[in-house]
């Protein structure tokens, strides 16, 4: 793998890596560091990259492992909210509508953040990034039944809580 192949094949996934690291770390600066580390690792092991079947999943797995290492290694706290840098881009809306949408986004964000770690990871990979179940198994190093159960629980919890929020404004 040369520089060209690296830029064409690996660089496009950097945002996926970043979002995944951000989901795990809750901190944009640290997520960025993880993405850098992953890409540097990929670059350094580019000679052996050809032997890897699904290197995108491989990169995601590396992102997960490096993020978890960071979580374990240091006493840290989430400084950035999940919604940082997230602009509500909807034209032709009144300020009131905009705040309303931002508010509901914030609610969903908190709701998902309250899910157990594994469920959050699976839901992110499936619903935000659109990975297949097989790929999620590979990334998270879980078997199919665990992935499906986690996703099922995550979606159901989210569904119930969304109904509650809308019904009672909680």
């Amino acid at each position, binding site marked *: 793998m040369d520089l060209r192949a690296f830029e064409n094949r690996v660089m496009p996934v950097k945002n996926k890596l970043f979002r995944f690291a951000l989901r795990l770390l809750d901190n944009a600066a640290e997520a960025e560091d993880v993405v*850098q580390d992953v890409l540097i690792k990929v*670059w350094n092991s580019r000679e052996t990259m050809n032997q890897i079947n699904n290197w995108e999943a491989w990169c995601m797995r590396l992102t997960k492992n490096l993020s978890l290492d960071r979580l374990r290694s240091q006493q840290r706290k989430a400084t950035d909210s999940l919604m940082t840098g997230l602009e509500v881009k909807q034209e032709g809306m009144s300020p009131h509508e905009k705040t309303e949408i931002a508010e509901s986004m914030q609610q969903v964000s908190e709701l998902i953040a309250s899910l157990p770690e594994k469920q959050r990871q699976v839901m992110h990979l499936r*619903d935000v990034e*659109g990975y297949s179940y097989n790929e999620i198994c590979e990334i998270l190093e879980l078997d199919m039944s665990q992935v499906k159960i986690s996703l099922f629980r995550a979606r159901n919890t989210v569904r119930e809580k969304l109904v509650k929020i*809308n019904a009672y404004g909680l």
Partner: protein
Amino acid sequence: MRMDSRIEQLLEKYWKCETSLEEEKELKDFFNSQEISDELKEPATLFKYFEYQKKQGVDEERLQKKLSSVVESDKRGKVVTMFFTIAKIAAGVVVLVAATYLVREEVRKSYPTEIADTYSDPELAFEETKKALMMISRGFGKAKQEAVKIKTFNEAEQIIQGNSEKEDSSKINI
């Protein structure tokens, strides 16, 4: 309305985790493209959230800067490493050659040089030996001839000495 029922159907499947990736894409597209009726407000928020999440990205410029410095230093590093490797090998060879030379000198000093076998063909060696011996024997032969001459001289000298003694004694006698 027909669209809504299809979406409701998909949503039911979605909550049960029975949707395919394509169907989930369809849901996302639907909730992010149009006005959503109040009944579908809850899932709409969720799917909008997913879509917003996807807009987050890494700071391209900063990442590129960091990475290009790594890639560059990697290239330079390779040349330097190669140079050092070659230098190490060269130094090793030099030490080895010097050591061999010195040890050989030492060994030469402590052991007198043995006669080396210079001929590989035994017959040729025999011939050469014969030649050498012949040369020595010829030398001896010549020397013997010369020695005969010396003997004659000696005899002559003895005779002369004998005569002079006789003369002396005769002188005394006289």
